[in-house]
């Protein structure tokens, strides 16, 4: 198979295991490309991609932009803060105006869950979801699983723990879908107030005791507390959160388990969810995740652009 089952990457929920395998296989090749002296291929030289960000982003935006440039695509960037959105323009109008300038693909981040699904019903172009509210962040999940696969091989039966602010995290949801499709077992851990209701219906077990959860897992994906999305107080203080759910060497020593693979989607709040010695330690794959992000995003853009015969 050399074709994705979808024309748009809106979420991990609606892609297949075969799609994920194809993206990984292609990303393997792009990883080799970005480690060459000339880190660029001409594949998308006739494609223009708009990065439309209605919400702040550093890493994801840089990673997408770099992926697009490494594929030789033309790139335009758009931030909601400095645009006509402030003047009352609708999402469909904004995107249609950008497409009228002969743009072929849209990479979008939006604070509202489902914004991409809505948009896909009204515009006819390839769309990549770079995060929609607390819903999905598919490329992050793909690069997380790709990095894990690099370290662990086949993920079937691997025990993966997602820790922290699950309620406000799009990374958690996309990771759950992706890892389960790859055969891993996923559990979530955090304060009860930050665990979404009915998350068990996704086949995910909830663990409130962090120590027990660590003793169970092969991999711990430490999420950031998303204070900017929290409209009420979910726990008394950051210090208390950190004492209960912060990952430190002392904690790992106390359970006698040092080889847990540590992940973090960034940005890290050092000293809150994770201490510096763990984040920079030998079992941390945080920077591998960042490097792989470019290769995985190149694969997604390449496959989406390539499956539409738009020239002849």
């Amino acid at each position, binding site marked *: 198979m*050399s*074709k994705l089952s979808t024309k748009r990457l809106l979420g991990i929920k609606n892609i297949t295991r075969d799609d994920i395998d*194809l993206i990984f*296989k*292609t990303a*393997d*090749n792009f990883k*080799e*490309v970005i480690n*060459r*002296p*000339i880190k*660029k*291929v*001409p*594949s998308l030289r*006739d494609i223009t991609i708009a990065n439309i960000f209605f919400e702040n982003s550093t890493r994801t935006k840089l990673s997408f932009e770099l992926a697009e440039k490494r594929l030789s695509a033309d790139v335009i960037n758009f931030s909601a803060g400095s645009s006509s959105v402030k003047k009352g323009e609708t999402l469909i109008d904004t995107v249609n105006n950008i497409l009228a300038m002969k743009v072929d693909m849209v990479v979008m981040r939006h604070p509202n869950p489902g914004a991409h699904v809505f948009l896909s019903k009204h515009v006819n172009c390839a769309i990549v979801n770079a995060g929609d509210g607390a819903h999905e962040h598919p490329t992050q999940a793909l690069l997380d699983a790709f990095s894990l696969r690099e370290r662990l091989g086949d993920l079937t039966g691997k025990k993966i723990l997602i820790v922290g602010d699950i309620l406000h995290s799009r990374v958690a949801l996309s990771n759950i879908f992706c890892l389960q499709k790859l055969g891993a077992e996923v559990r979530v851990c955090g304060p009860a107030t930050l665990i979404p209701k009915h998350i068990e219906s996704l086949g995910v077990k909830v663990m409130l005791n962090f120590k027990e959860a660590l003793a169970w897992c092969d991999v711990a994906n430490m999420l950031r507390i998303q204070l900017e999305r929290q409209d009420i107080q979910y726990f008394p203080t950051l210090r208390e959160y950190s004492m209960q759910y912060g990952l430190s060497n002392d904690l790992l020593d106390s359970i006698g388990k040092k080889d847990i693979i540590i992940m973090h989607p960034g940005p890290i709040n050092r000293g809150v969810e994770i201490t510096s010695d763990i984040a920079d330690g030998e079992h941390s794959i945080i920077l591998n995740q960042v490097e792989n992000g470019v290769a995985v995003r190149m694969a997604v853009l*390449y*496959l989406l*652009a*390539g*499956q*539409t*015969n*738009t*020239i*002849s």
Partner: protein
Amino acid sequence: MESRLLLNHQALEHTLNRLAFELFEKHGDFQNTAIIALQPRGVLLGRRIVERIADLTGVKVPYGELDVTFYRDDFRRRDEPLVPAKTNLDFSVEGKRIILVDDVLYTGRTVRSGMDAMLDFGRPIQVELMALIDRRFSRELPVQPDYVGRMVDVVKHETVKVHWSEYNSDNKVTLYSFANNE
């Protein structure tokens, strides 16, 4: 579908030996020469040529395998993107004499992509092309090989395939003819 044997195992063996000798004649001690085979099918020829040169001269020529998928000119012109193969090229081509190797030379487009891909690894002082089979009169780009195993005249609805057997016991080159509606 009809098929016709172009080279049997023995003839192919002779051809491979001759190609290795031709390279030896031109490149001598292979001091500044490297061989790069194009994925996916050129590598099956490339590996054998490198082995034969080693048998002949005792020299282990630097050898790399190059995938050209991301450099092709038919991207977005076919219904499905091609799945890339692995690139395995751990040396710089800067200042080297490079021999590009592919099994069947047809339109010349793969070789064009291969040259672009290769130039991302440096600037060679010279590039030559080896093809086991040259389908002459079917070129779409001005590409000509320097070393040819066998030249064949083949029309569009025919295809030439090189079969490499696992233990080098029954290698052969076959021509397949399809009726126009097949």
